[in-house]
């Protein structure tokens, strides 16, 4: 019998509709969110197996409303007794906290919804054997090692199967299934005390809703050899200059720029102050919606959970709200925040379907999902041609921003000097810093659809208790004027 990548553990039976009947008597209103997730991590380092691990998460988060307050209890005990006990704990928490609640629950915050979602895939995990897949990862390391100066190579693949079911005492029944794939292939070059790491678009930026067709290894091998050579080029390169220059960011760095300086500051729960003790607040105020010129007229940003294959696409969020495409920023003007029905009701502002939880053991909160910068009209060559002297940067390696999402500093793996409209010499240790609104208002050119690329990240952290969630970001390359760029110390 062939050992494919697919794994089917033996689980106890679970019927969520039946489970709902067990817990309905415990509270005025009840919801059950069942999550089953299998995460396969396959890592090869220097052509040897490094990490072969699969996690199987399975449990239920119960939502219980008592006296107008909602509270939660998560459990992996899916027996009748276990779920009844969890429902009692949630109801008891709701009862105790009701006199001090921050928000009054109503059933409008959990609209009745029925439907489903299946993420796109052509080749499932049963389409490839474990042996074949491991051999491909080993070969990827071989292609990354283009020189003896490459001291470390790694080829990491993550395959995630997720089943979500959400039912409520008010008639919601949602069933969503996802297959999520990502890779992180990288080479580290070293010469003396200098070391340089180069990867395929930055750590785990290549992530999609797809099947094993995502791993087109013949194309990946070509990319591996390219980044291996670029790691060597970086060893011999000059530091990025310390100057105020035109800056062209590749789509794989735009993903981080969008995430940190658009996604997080627009979260309505941040604006409400929920995150002030951990992730931070926001410089955006409720009165800024419809008034703040967030960026130049070229800036058009959407919340778009409908892009087939992007990492955070779905049909319904965790409160049952149907997910639709919405403009957050149009022609540079701030229009709409990233807020669930709960945050919308607390602020009196429109939002989006972005109520999400990391797993069965966390309550949903406002999250970034797919946030995309819409394409403009310029080719990549047009953008370069417009630059007399500047820097082109690719692939994030360092990120830091203040707790109001104003003052940022980001670093990239790889850069090229731009002189007289042409890409020139390679630059190492490229960084840039700025302040969010002035930076986006310095946006001078936006790449066209042909230059537009889709990336994402599995690692967006937020919340108390904390949660890591998947996000998608698509963007073309963009040109910004008069940005402070700098490199490493001499």
């Amino acid at each position, binding site marked *: 019998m062939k*050992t494919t990548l697919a794994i089917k*553990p*033996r*689980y*106890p039976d679970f019927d969520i509709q039946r489970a709902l009947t067990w817990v309905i008597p415990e509270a005025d209103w009840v919801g059950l969110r069942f999550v089953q997730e299998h995460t396969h991590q396959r890592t090869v380092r220097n052509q*040897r*197996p*490094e990490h*072969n*691990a*699969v*996690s*199987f998460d399975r449990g239920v988060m119960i939502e219980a409303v008592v006296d107008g307050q909602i*509270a*939660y*209890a*998560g*459990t*992996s*005990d899916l*027996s009748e007794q*276990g779920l009844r006990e969890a429902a009692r*704990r949630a109801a008891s*928490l709701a009862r*105790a*906290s009701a*006199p*001090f609640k*921050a*928000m009054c629950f109503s059933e409008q915050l959990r609209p009745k919804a029925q439907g489903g979602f299946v993420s796109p895939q052509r080749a499932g995990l049963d389409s490839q054997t474990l042996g074949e897949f491991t051999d491909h990862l080993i070969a990827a390391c071989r292609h990354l090692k283009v020189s003896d100066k490459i*001291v*470390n190579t790694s080829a990491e693949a993550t395959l995630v199967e997720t089943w979500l079911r959400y039912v409520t005492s008010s008639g919601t029944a949602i069933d969503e299934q996802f297959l999520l794939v990502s890779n992180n292939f990288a080479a*580290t070059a*070293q010469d003396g*005390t*200098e070391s340089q790491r180069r990867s395929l678009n930055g*750590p785990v930026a290549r992530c999609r809703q797809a099947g094993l067709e995502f791993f087109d290894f013949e194309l990946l091998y070509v990319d591996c050899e390219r980044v291996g050579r670029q790691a060597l080029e970086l060893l011999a390169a000059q530091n990025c200059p310390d100057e105020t220059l035109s800056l062209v960011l590749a789509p794989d760095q735009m993903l981080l720029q969008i995430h940190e300086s658009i996604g997080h500051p627009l979260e309505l729960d941040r604006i409400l102050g*929920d995150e*002030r*003790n*951990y992730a*931070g607040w926001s410089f955006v105020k409720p009165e800024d919606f419809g008034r703040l010129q967030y960026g130049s007229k070229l800036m058009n940003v959407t919340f778009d959970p409908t892009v087939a294959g992007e990492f955070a696409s779905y049909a319904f969020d965790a409160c049952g709200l149907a997910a639709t495409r919405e403009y957050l920023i149009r022609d540079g003007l701030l229009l709409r925040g990233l807020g669930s029905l709960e945050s919308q009701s607390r602020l009196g502002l429109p939002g989006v379907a972005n109520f999400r939880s990391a797993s069965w*053991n966390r*309550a949903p909160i406002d999250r970034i999902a797919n946030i995309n910068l819409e394409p403009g009209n310029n080719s990549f060559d047009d953008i370069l041609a417009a630059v007399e002297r500047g820097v082109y940067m690719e692939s994030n390696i*360092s990120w*830091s921003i*203040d*707790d*109001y999402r104003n*003052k940022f*500093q980001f*670093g990239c793996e790889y850069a090229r000097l731009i002189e007289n409209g042409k890409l020139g010499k390679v630059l190492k240790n490229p960084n840039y*810093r700025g*302040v969010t609104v002035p930076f986006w208002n310095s946006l001078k050119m936006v790449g066209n659809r042909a230059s537009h690329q889709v990336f994402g990240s599995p690692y967006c952290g937020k919340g108390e*208790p*904390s*949660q890591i969630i998947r996000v998608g970001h698509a963007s073309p390359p963009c040109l910004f004027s008069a940005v402070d760029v700098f*490199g*490493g*110390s001499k």
Partner: protein
Amino acid sequence: MSATSESRIVFDYLAEAVFAELLQGEELSLNLSAEDQVYLRFNNSRVRQATDVLQRNLKVTMQCRGRKFEFTYDLTGEEPWDLATLRSLLERARREVQVLPEDPFVVPMQDFGKSDQHHAGERPSYEEVIECIASSTAGTDLTGLFASGPQIRAVRNSAGQNHWFSTETSFLDYSLYTVNASGENKAVKGLYAESVWDRQRCLASIETSKRQLSLLKRRSHPVPPGEYRAFLAPAAVAEIIGMFSWGAVSYSAWKKGGSALRKLIEGETSFSDKFNLKENFLLGLTPRFNSLGELPPEEVTIVEKGLLKNLLVSSRTAEEYGVASNAAETGGWFEEHLRSAEVMTGELAEADALQALGTGLYVSNLHYLNWSDFQTARITGMTRYACFWVENGEPVAPIQDLRFDESLYRIFGTELESLTRESQIIPATDTYHRRALGGRKIPGVLVRAFRFTL
């Protein structure tokens, strides 16, 4: 029966059942992480979210014929079902080790002995906690997280080792907000943590924080980018010490080109002879045994008088590079990392810190650190919370948040003037996946020059 007792019964049942079923040449390790927690989230002194989580997560490592496969699953607590799932996954593990190539750095499982630690605590009723926090802080704009309940870490393997650690503690990690005379939001950070919740001590902690708010209400003092004398309070220093766990003192990361302290490790440079850093499990913040059940030395000196003494070496790294292991924990992108870091104290009395600073910046907290120049161990990040401009030893006014960009070699080297005589335990309050264990013991640090860029 308590969740801790139930977890132990299930864990032992599963271990004994599957160890008895192993085939010739198979080794198995079972690693339990469990918690029964109440998480109360506050905003503006009201309850924003209240969540109860009971979770038991079992990681199983199978080794056979020089191959290794790990799987992790959520226990239901129902012994027959948990065993049925475990058996089905063991069957998969047997197929995996038939197919996977040989891993030359697999470390054979050993019996690292037995230990059993239970740190009993007294869990408060959440009714009392909610009433206490919400009532006592009404009108002061408190935001934060209260977490309480037992946490468990346990490791058994088929060679016979058996380590158990359980503890029951509570913490309130909070911020108090105000608006100052410049119309800016200002906040002070507080933490109350104990194994036995004490209402009066919690309220005293909040009152202390409230008193600090008065200084924050003054008009902000403008501080342009540049270099300033700075006193970094223990919480700010703790953030910087966190960067040592981003591969900096990992033997494996160093060999792979992933340590920012390469020049220190290879003797090209050093820190100040006043800087001493060690891993100290005697602090009792975390179980001494690691996820393999190995017992590291009670103390591992990392930096002594500014010079590197030891890197952290896991048994797998030791196998790969032919060096001695100090049973460091490994895993993730940053390889070996500190679990219980202690920076040794200096001569400066904390009460004299502002006088010694003279004129410069008092930095209470730092936020969102990352490498700025990996080759020279330069880091960037932001000031956060109660940071002040100080003149002639007196705090004058709060500052607006500043971005710093500074090398570890300057902070703990050329620019290090003194460390405080006192140090603070800063327990881990991370809650990704589950509540963390561990923490750091850290003094304040006075530096002659600290660079701010934005």
